[in-house]
């Protein structure tokens, strides 16, 4: 086959081995994937090839060296890292020996790159049009009106209903899905033969993920684009990948045709990844929740903005109850009001009307029970800790308000909480920048436990974690829920997480609860049309389904006469892919 990318025996090392890992000074981690100094190579003996029109998935947990591999292909490794062995060829260019000038033609020209957090990958003070102008000028030689016309066409191609508005938009004005489409347009603007996609959809919900994947697949079919798709979620690419390469600790541990890997994984690590990416529902036995309610929401409204025209109803007549010991899942796309709901229940947000009743147990203390009995676990572990404080001081802060706790008692409580979440006590003296996402998320849970809560709200608590870490954190939450008789509200856009964890499911759409049902019933017979779309987008990706998935038509195409899509400001309606 005609390979457009060929990596042979690649080895990447930290060139400054004597540097102490320095995360405390400015609270930042050393590099992508939390690379620290060490003698062992970060990537070793890695060989892979991508042919024209081929979709290759590179799968592995965080820190396995996936990102470093893709950055190596463009020679864009952070300065402290370097390629110490091996060769990379892109087309006819030897990347490892290329001059700066050749690399400029390579980056964005021959090889395009998609990133994980599309919004952060745009310059916030430049419009999408100004971004698109760069590759169009550098690689296409287009300027002025021609560049503008090309930019409009690119945006139209990736599914912008109103490209004119798209080019004028600033990144922050786009939704997550639209931003990733714009990023895709940007990566494709130089007409690359190869696209390096580094977890481009991990931050998106399942529906948007499928849309982006279909978009890439269309480019692949139409003009033979080769795709190297990096992800931690093996299931997400099952329907599109020809070959799957599994990466662990810097090298490829298993490789083969997608069907074979998914159906008959050889290595334990691959099996773990597979298991983690499809959280098996109903694998746990739990006592039925007690009848007594701990939380009741009655007619809750939340309006943002005082202006008549600009005000926005984030929650509209929400009625929900949470029983003691129950795990309630709240599903919804981004912008549906999930986080507002969480903040309202904890009391961080005042509701405009309606009541939130807390019916808590009288467990010991009397003071501030109402405020601490409901605790929140946030999505972004790194931003829910003060970067300048050690974990110990961060965790101690809420305890200082408790009267009658000696320093010793506080230390003991913190140590107990750390043991609960299976973290070593030595972590306490680190700063957030020195910890991994999984460790921090455990610490967040420990911090919530310190105040002896009765209700724990997990707002996308595992969305930022890779599949393996996600699974262990979810299991941790389940154990804690059991042992402490906690009631949990699990807010997520991830159907698998909800199905794995929850007794009941509530679906939010534009601030309204459109469906509440038992988990089992919900996933077999979703009542509302939007719920059906959500459930369908969460494809059950098993190896034996692969063939049927590969030949399946994109769901829910709209008829030709219909307007294909709403303008960019709203979230994308279900199933409207870019395939028009």
């Amino acid at each position, binding site marked *: 086959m005609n390979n457009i990318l060929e990596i042979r025996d690649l080895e990447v090392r930290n060139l400054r081995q004597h540097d102490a890992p320095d995360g405390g000074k400015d609270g*930042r981690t050393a590099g992508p994937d939390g690379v620290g100094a060490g003698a062992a190579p970060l990537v070793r003996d890695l060989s892979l090839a991508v042919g024209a029109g081929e979709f290759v998935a590179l799968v592995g947990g965080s820190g396995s060296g996936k990102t470093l591999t893709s950055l190596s292909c*463009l020679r*864009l490794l952070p300065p402290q890292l370097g390629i110490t062995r091996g060769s990379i060829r892109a087309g006819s260019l030897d990347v490892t020996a290329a001059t*700066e000038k050749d690399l*400029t*033609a*390579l*980056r*964005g*020209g021959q090889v*395009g*790159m998609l*990133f994980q*957090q599309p919004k*952060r*990958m*745009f*310059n*916030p*003070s*430049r419009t999408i049009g100004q971004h698109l102008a*760069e*590759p169009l000028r*550098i*690689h296409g030689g287009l300027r002025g009106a021609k560049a503008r016309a090309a930019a409009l066409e690119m945006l139209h191609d990736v599914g912008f209903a109103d490209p004119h508005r798209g080019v004028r938009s*600033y990144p*922050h004005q786009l939704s997550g899905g639209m931003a990733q489409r714009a990023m895709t347009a*940007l*990566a494709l*603007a*130089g007409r690359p033969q190869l696209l390096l996609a580094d977890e481009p959809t991990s931050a998106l919900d399942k529906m948007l993920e499928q849309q982006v994947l279909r978009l890439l697949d269309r480019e692949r079919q139409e003009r033979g684009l080769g795709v190297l798709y990096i992800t931690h979620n093996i299931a997400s690419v099952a329907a599109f990948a020809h070959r799957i390469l599994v990466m662990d600790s810097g090298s490829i541990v298993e490789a083969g045709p997608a069907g074979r890997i998914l159906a008959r994984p050889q290595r334990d690590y691959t099996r773990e990844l597979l298991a983690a990416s499809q959280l098996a529902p109903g694998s746990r036995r739990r006592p039925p929740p007690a009848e007594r309610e701990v939380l009741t929401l009655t007619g809750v409204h939340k309006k943002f903005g005082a202006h008549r025209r600009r005000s926005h109803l984030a929650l509209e007549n929400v009625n929900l109850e949470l029983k003691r010991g129950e795990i309630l899942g709240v599903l919804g796309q981004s912008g549906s009001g999930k986080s507002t709901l969480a903040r309202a229940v904890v009391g961080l947000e005042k509701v405009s009307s309606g009541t939130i009743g807390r019916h808590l147990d009288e467990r010991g203390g009397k003071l501030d029970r109402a405020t601490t009995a409901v605790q929140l676990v946030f999505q972004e572990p790194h931003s829910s800790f003060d970067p300048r404080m050690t974990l110990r001081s961060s965790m101690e802060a809420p305890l200082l308000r408790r009267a009658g706790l000696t320093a010793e008692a506080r230390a003991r409580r913190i140590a107990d909480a750390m043991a609960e979440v299976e973290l070593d006590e030595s972590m306490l003296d680190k700063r957030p920048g020195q910890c991994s996402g999984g460790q921090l998320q455990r610490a967040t849970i420990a911090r919530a436990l310190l105040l002896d809560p009765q209700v724990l709200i997990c707002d996308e608590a595992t969305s930022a974690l890779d599949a393996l870490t996600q699974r262990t954190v979810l299991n941790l939450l389940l154990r804690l829920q059991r042992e402490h008789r906690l009631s949990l509200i699990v807010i997520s856009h991830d159907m698998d997480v909800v199905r794995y964890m929850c007794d009941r499911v509530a679906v939010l759409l534009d601030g309204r609860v459109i469906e509440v049902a038992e988990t089992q019933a919900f996933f077999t017979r979703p009542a509302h049309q939007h719920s059906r779309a959500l459930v369908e987008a969460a494809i059950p990706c098993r190896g034996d389904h692969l063939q049927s998935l590969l030949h399946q038509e994109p769901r829910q195409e709209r008829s030709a006469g219909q307007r294909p899509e709403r303008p960019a400001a709203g979230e994308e309606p279900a199933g409207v892919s870019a395939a028009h």
Partner: protein
Amino acid sequence: MLPFIAKRTTTLVTAVVVSSFAVFLIPYFTPGDPVRKIIRSRVNGDVVDDASVQSLSLSLGLQDPLMLQYFRWLGRMASGDMGLSHVSRTAVAEQVLPALAVTLSLVVFSLGLAVLVSLPLGIAAGLRPGRATDKVITTVTQSFIAMPEYWVAPLLVLVFALKLSVLPSAGWAGPASMVLPAVTLALRPISYFTSAVRSGILEASAAEHVPAARARGLSQAQAVLRHVVPNGLVPLSTLFAVWFAGLLGGSVIVEVIFAVPGMGRLLFNAVINSDVPLAQGGVVVVVALAVTVTTLADFVHRLLSPTVEGSYA
């Protein structure tokens, strides 16, 4: 953008009105009867009889309700009539406006100088943090903070006026006379601006969109020029406005030392001589100008960083 402008303009007008009311109240809170002061300044005598106090305060409208007096006073201010100076018996406006022109040119010159110096220094330091260049630049510019104007000014005069005789030591005649006061005034802004530019650049270079731009084929230099430097300069626009506003009335020491006939010296003298109308007129003009400049800076800031939208509008 329109609602943003409307909102900021409302804030501007409110700030001017509120602060002008405070200025209007000055004579009511300062010791001594203003009417007697006026009479004393007119007749050059110490004895003031109650009858003439009575009649003058009537003719000046001082018996009217306070708010009426205030709006009358504000109206006159707005039309450029700031009353007569107690000391010189000339129109306040005729003293304030030339002084304002002097101070404006001094401030523009010195802050322009500060920007010209601190931009390259801050960018150089911010692009390579921790290197020798950064350390030298940071140490030197930071030391400027600790140099008081009353110490720097005589030093400069000693060297450039007395020893080298290349620049005039004081006075206000032509561009040459602006150099020493402007340099003295520029030192502290230079150190603040440099450090703001440096940290702005540092932050902007750490943004993830910079390597993303390089992955599109931009060279390191292009990425820095397009995506680091413009973003890194945003904080400077705000800081510039704060200093501009502050120096309008706050360049007293330099103006006194170099005998520059500017606002600072004018206000200083007005206060020393308890020349209330002069002080009032001067302060109102300075406040109005300062608030306008900060508002303009907000507009510029808004243009430079479109994400501000959410937090203001």
